[in-house]
């Protein structure tokens, strides 16, 4: 067993220890918290890249925790699918970590920074655990770790609305957790195992059992809530809009994507295409709902008056794109879906960062207060325009590429109408992205030539600006060099469709 095989488990153990260290160090001096957190996240990100490269060349890494062989022991499995997701979420986590310092100082308050970084670290670790575990119950444990920390972090904004948002999410998240746990219990009842690979192996014999159908439905509903799949997205807008900026970014990029990852993993790797297409044909239904989500999310986003809330509803729409891929369920569409997991994380991360920076500088994210903001914050608004273009799907950004794959896949599967709706639906994104562009760039032509804006707002500090610009450029370059990304995404989709 070489060094690289131990890295997956270290990616969980070291950060858990680090979060304890943050707590202890913070007792001594609060200033230690941030560096420890940043270094840990960078370590995780570096490890994720190392694992990705290793998996690309050498194939799947399997690690039995504590030396207990599966199916009894807990197994960590990193294949070309989750190594890609792992790298994607940790990329965003690292970007958020850079961004977080100034934003947290201002929004959370110095006396709470210690607990903030402890929870922040635990949340990321929970997400990493969900991504790399090969054991379905272990997945649930990590899901709860990340969920509970997320509830607390949302409330850490300490505004009345954020308590309500946190509580709402707590209720719905717990319901989701309940469904998932019931699903897992049913699977265990049907097969007697909790190891995912083992489940995939044993389940086909029980495909006709009502227990298995029930398990499938419970898991679907549970993860649909967690992933905010329309119409189970009700917790999302408040949770995103009312949480501190750094938390919003982490929730909307890393956490949302991991929930979707878990759904993909369970549908394709535990139940396999044989079940979701033939035994319990659910893909057509998912495709329909996904298309509704794309349109409804975008329409709701257009109706918002607040920048963060608008972006939150946009996420509801964008989750629809990814689920669209799941509904079509062929190679090309799934490539588009996985591409969109990365692409949407990058661009939405950038957009929320800009929204956070605007709040940081101006203390508001009401669209009507942001007239002419591009004059005082030109770099962040340019980044918003670029990431926004990607959200709309203007070539050659990453957003265009994933849309292209999705439509191509849908046409290949003969879903002409859905392809048409997806294309037209993507135009709706213009409706909300362009609203901000108009207000920011061309908004101050009504006489008040923004004297007060100039005094109130200026371009953000470098530590916040750098990740914003980085992610905006990434949304362009990932699109231009999409072929390189497909080298990773292609095998990942093969894993999904191969079943194992």
């Amino acid at each position, binding site marked *: 067993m070489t060094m690289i095989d131990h890295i997956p488990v270290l990616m969980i153990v070291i950060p858990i220890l680090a979060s304890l260290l943050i707590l202890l160090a913070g007792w001594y001096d609060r200033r230690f918290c941030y560096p420890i957190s940043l270094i840990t996240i960078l370590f995780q990100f570096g490890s994720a890249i190392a694992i990705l490269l290793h998996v690309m060349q050498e194939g799947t890494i399997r690690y039995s925790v504590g030396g207990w062989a599966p199916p009894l022991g807990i197994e960590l499995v990193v294949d070309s699918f989750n190594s890609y997701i792992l790298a994607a979420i940790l990329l965003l986590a690292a970007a958020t970590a850079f961004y977080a310092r100034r934003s947290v100082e201002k929004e959370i308050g110095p006396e709470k920074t210690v607990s903030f970084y402890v929870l922040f670290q635990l949340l990321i670790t929970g997400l990493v655990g969900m991504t790399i575990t090969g054991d379905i119950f272990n997945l649930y444990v990590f899901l709860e770790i990340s969920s509970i920390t997320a509830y607390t972090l949302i409330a850490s904004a300490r505004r009345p609305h954020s308590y309500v948002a946190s509580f709402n999410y707590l209720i719905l998240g717990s319901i989701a957790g309940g469904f998932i746990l019931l699903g897992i219990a049913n699977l265990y009842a049907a097969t007697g195992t909790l190891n995912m690979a083992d489940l995939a192996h044993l389940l086909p014999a029980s495909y006709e059992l009502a227990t298995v159908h029930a398990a499938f439905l419970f898991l679907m509903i549970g993860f649909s809530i967690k992933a905010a799949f329309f119409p189970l997205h009700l917790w999302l807008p408040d949770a995103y809009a009312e949480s501190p900026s750094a938390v919003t970014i982490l929730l909307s990029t890393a956490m949302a994507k991991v929930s979707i990852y878990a759904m993909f993993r369970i549908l394709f790797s535990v139940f396999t295409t044989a079940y979701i297409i033939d035994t319990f044909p659910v893909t057509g239904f998912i495709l329909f709902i996904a298309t509704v989500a794309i349109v409804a999310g975008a329409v709701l986003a257009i109706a918002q008056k607040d920048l963060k809330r608008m972006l939150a509803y946009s996420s509801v729409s964008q989750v629809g794109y990814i689920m669209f891929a799941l509904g079509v369920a062929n190679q090309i569409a799934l490539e588009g879906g996985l591409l969109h997991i990365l692409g949407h994380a990058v661009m939405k991360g950038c957009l929320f960062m800009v929204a956070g920076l605007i709040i940081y500088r101006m203390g508001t994210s009401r669209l009507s207060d942001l007239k002419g903001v591009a004059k005082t914050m030109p770099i962040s608004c340019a980044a918003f325009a670029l990431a926004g273009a990607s959200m*709309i799907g*203007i070539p*050659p950004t990453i957003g265009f590429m994933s849309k292209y794959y999705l439509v*191509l896949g849908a*046409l290949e599967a003969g879903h002409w109408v859905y392809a048409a709706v997806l*294309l037209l639906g993507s135009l709706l994104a213009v409706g909300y992205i362009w609203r901000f562009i108009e207000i920011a760039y*061309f908004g101050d*032509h009504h006489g008040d030539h923004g004297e007060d804006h100039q005094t109130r707002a200026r371009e953000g500090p470098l530590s916040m600006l750098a990740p914003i610009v980085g992610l905006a450029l990434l949304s362009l370059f990932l699109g231009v060099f999409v072929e390189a990304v497909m080298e990773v995404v292609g095998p990942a989709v093969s894993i999904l469709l191969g079943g194992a």
Partner: protein
Amino acid sequence: MADMNGVLPAVTIAIPLLASVLILIVGRHENIREAVTIVAATAMLGSVLAMLPEILSGGRITISLLPMVPGGDFALRVDAFGMVFALTATALWLLNSFYAIGYMRSLKEHAQTRFFFCFAVAIAAAVGIAFSENLLTLFIFYEILTIITYPLVVHVETPEAMKAGRKYLAYLLVGGISLLAAVILTYTLTGTTGFVPGGFLAGSGSALILQILFLLFMVGFVKAAWMPLHGWLPAAMVAPTPVSAFLHAVAVVTAGVFGIVRIAGWVYGMDLMASLGLGTFLAVIASFTIITASLFALTEDNLKRRLAYSTVSQLSYILLGVSMLSIAGMTAAMAHIPIHAFLKITLFFVAGAVIVSAGKEYISDMKGIGRKMPVTALMFSAAAIGICGLPPLSGIISKIYLALGAVEGGMPILLLVVITSAVLNAAYFFPIIYTMLLDRPDDEHSLDSVSEPPLVMLVPIILTATVSVLIFFFPSTPFMDLIEIALAEITGSVIP
């Protein structure tokens, strides 16, 4: 040299992109910023001219830049028809740059750095469209052109401009989606999107599907402003005049008609178009647009808006040429691209010069303005005569080929359309000429402060008008020669 030539298409597009970055960097220093624009425009024209000999000798320059998605690499290919567009666009961009500098400075317009930045990216996209090797690459440049021209259209930032901007985006982005659908559908049907002289769609799907596909392409190329999808073009007239010139002559509408000709000759092929009845479909749209837009033009008093409807009408000459599906018709279509561009840009330059020198936008206010601006008014008259199709200006060339195509194809009704339109053109242009040159101003002293525009604006006006005369006398250099090669390609009379 062969290697050198191989990268020239990419270099041509890279020059303005590089310039756009420089423009942002040196934005505060106006003179340096403008120098960047001029140097880039000159270099770009030079780079296009450097490729001309190879293309004129029947060669093509292909360069594959990046593998992309299934459906096409990001690849460029310079062929004779692409050269027609690229040459027109780059030559006019250089002149338009001088003109724009004079215009923007005279009117002390705001946000000039943004303006010149967008201009530079837009010309890169336009030449990218000309040099695209496949539909997907073309689509990418086409969308970039849409987005980057938006800030130009809404430049003045008045509520009216914002409204026009929304209209502009609504039409062009819906068009873009339609084009994307068409590109993907083409790929699904044939497994390729690369342009092939003579087309590659034949036999790939049922007649109905190919007809629907054509409709998608047509909606996609809404930049050709065919009626009833022309509304964005007159609305976009709120933009500063150099932008109008850019929209109407240099790049935007030209990109639309270029796309339609490309589709007809290099995706469908004339035989397939004929067997699907698409020629008739196109002829109906084109005839309707030509006549209706001319009638609209008659009623407009705002000079720029009248010119806009004139453009809508003139663009459909190109569609009419394509619809004939014959050598003569295609010749007319391709020739009308540079011919119309040089004539129309002259007219817009003059309209802008009148705004700068006299502050007048309405034709009824321009009485006797030719006394104070004789050269400008004369150039306007010349270009207007050209559009009407009278010698000694280039406009007559495409008219003759159109008439020839109509007669050859046994479609006298189309001949009637061409003649009617010529009469209508005269009906809406001659009153302007009369007003400018012959009419007396209502108040003799109202024009006292009016004079010719600054030289940076006047010289481009004279040059574009002169080119239009030169094309009449020397049609083959280089445009008709290029068109001949392009036609030989798509009709298969030489092996491509």
